[in-house]
């Protein structure tokens, strides 16, 4: 026998959580009645404490991941960017790390082609650092690993980038901008935005962050290794960019940085 379709009632706890969250995320939707005890203070003011915590929490999470971007635009403006970002990008994880993931892309949309276009690239560098901070605790590959391979077989070797190594590039001098805005860097430095771009290899270690400047060919070489190309293929790619590409020197640089695995 067909049953009458009836609207299914949500369990009270789920309904309460939905109604409360509606008011928290969209303050004009705070329920007036039947949810929160007033007890001398308007429910909307009470929910406002949680809305404020949420706003402040996202600001702080972003400031922790993007201290250079914050320093570049100032605390107040950074907070307003964080607020705009928060309304566009909902947090979908309990781990605050993920709250910041889309911030570089957000800045790219906000400041495309304008005078602040470099800001998205600085943020992308900071995200690469944050992401590498969470990578595995493993030893880097030592150059001794090559000892048993005859040189004529080098071209077929496959390397991986170390899990705590990242690549980041920009038409702007993001390395100098980043270095000039570190807490330990006391001198006020003027960085010219048209001073030329950067091809960077980032390696995060427990007590240090290394930002190594590669050239375009070296960067393409490291990126190709990271994507699984054999040494020979990666070198060919680099040579196609710059006929003067020095394979030995670049490989040594990657070993010294602990960038290979």
């Amino acid at each position: 026998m067909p049953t009458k379709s009836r609207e299914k009632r949500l369990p009270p706890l789920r309904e309460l959580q939905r109604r409360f969250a509606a008011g928290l995320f969209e303050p004009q939707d705070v329920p007036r009645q039947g949810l929160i005890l007033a007890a001398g203070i308007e429910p909307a003011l009470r929910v406002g404490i949680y809305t404020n915590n949420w706003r402040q929490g996202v600001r702080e999470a972003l400031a922790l991941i993007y201290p250079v971007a914050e320093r570049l635009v100032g605390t107040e403006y950074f907070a307003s960017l964080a607020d705009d970002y928060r309304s566009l990008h909902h947090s979908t994880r309990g781990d605050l790390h993920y709250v910041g993931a889309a911030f570089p892309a957000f800045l790219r949309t906000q400041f495309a082609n304008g005078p602040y276009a470099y800001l998205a690239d600085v943020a992308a560098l900071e995200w690469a650092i944050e992401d590498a901070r969470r990578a595995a605790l493993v030893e880097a590959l030592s150059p001794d690993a090559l000892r048993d391979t005859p040189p004529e077989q080098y071209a077929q070797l496959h390397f991986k980038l170390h899990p705590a190594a990242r690549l980041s590039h920009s038409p702007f001098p993001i390395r100098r901008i980043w270095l000039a805005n570190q807490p330990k860097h006391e001198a006020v430095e003027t960085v010219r935005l048209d001073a030329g771009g950067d091809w960077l290899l980032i390696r995060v270690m427990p007590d240090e962050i290394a930002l190594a400047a590669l050239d375009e060919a070296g960067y393409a070489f490291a990126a190709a290794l990271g994507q699984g190309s054999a040494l020979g293929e990666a070198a060919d790619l680099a040579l196609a960019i710059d006929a003067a590409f020095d394979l030995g020197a670049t490989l040594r640089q990657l070993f010294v940085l602990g960038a290979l695995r």
Partner: protein
Amino acid sequence: MNDSVQPGPPGTLPVKRLVDGLPACAGIGLRAQHHAAVVAERPAVGWLEAHSENYFGRGSQSLHWLLQAREHYPVALHGVGLSLGSTDPLDTEHLREWRRLIVRVQPAVISEHLSWSSIDGRFSNDLLPLPYTREALAHLVDRVDQVQELLGRRILIENLSSYLQFDQSDMPEWVFLAELSRASGCGILLDVNNIYVNAHNHGFDADAYLAALPREAVGEIHLAGHSVRELGGQTVLIDTHSTHVCADVWQLYAQAIARFGAQPTLLEWDADIPALEVLVAEAQRADQVAGEALAAAA
């Protein structure tokens, strides 16, 4: 961990008793600013607490420091992002990350909050209060069961500061917490500052809260500083973890120690974090207050 299930009174869920532990003295939070200093200076505190989520991922940088610190101190892993009380499905990826960390760090204690922070997949990344109803209690018992099952050990659940109460609630927070512990076997992480804050914000007697909790369930205490705000013409206390523990909270802590005995006690300081010496001095004060409370009780 010892795990035994004893039958409860007729018509109730069985009472579970699970045991684990930290040294019954004061500890401090391991925070990124002090990672290197804690490892190098090894301050005279009994144990360290780390926020689990800060060490998620495979964790090269922060986990390196936590594992170094772990060589010298017992560690508690305190979760802040599980959204335990949410009616969304439990985040199994989050739990997997936590379990991986637990295997690496071998903490003496793990804990989470009596709260929720997400609905329909959207997070406020804050600790939101629950209504204290039979339905919510059954939900929490089920969720704590799932977490303890998945992690293979007992968890402590912490009472939180709140700035509102729900119309639906039909039991006091302390009854809810005591029942949750009794029915799920979870321990209680008693945040004495949060009791003080809520007693002020919601007008109840903090002594009644302490008196209602089963002695054997409390496995750790948290102490912190709070801020005072004016809201709608009234004073509201906000749990900010940004300052020293106030005199009234020290007094309530002494009462808690008199009732529950010496407890692992964490000095929480998460905003405007001061120099390491300040945190250590605050922890030493907790040991002193606890010592005096025990002497007075004896």
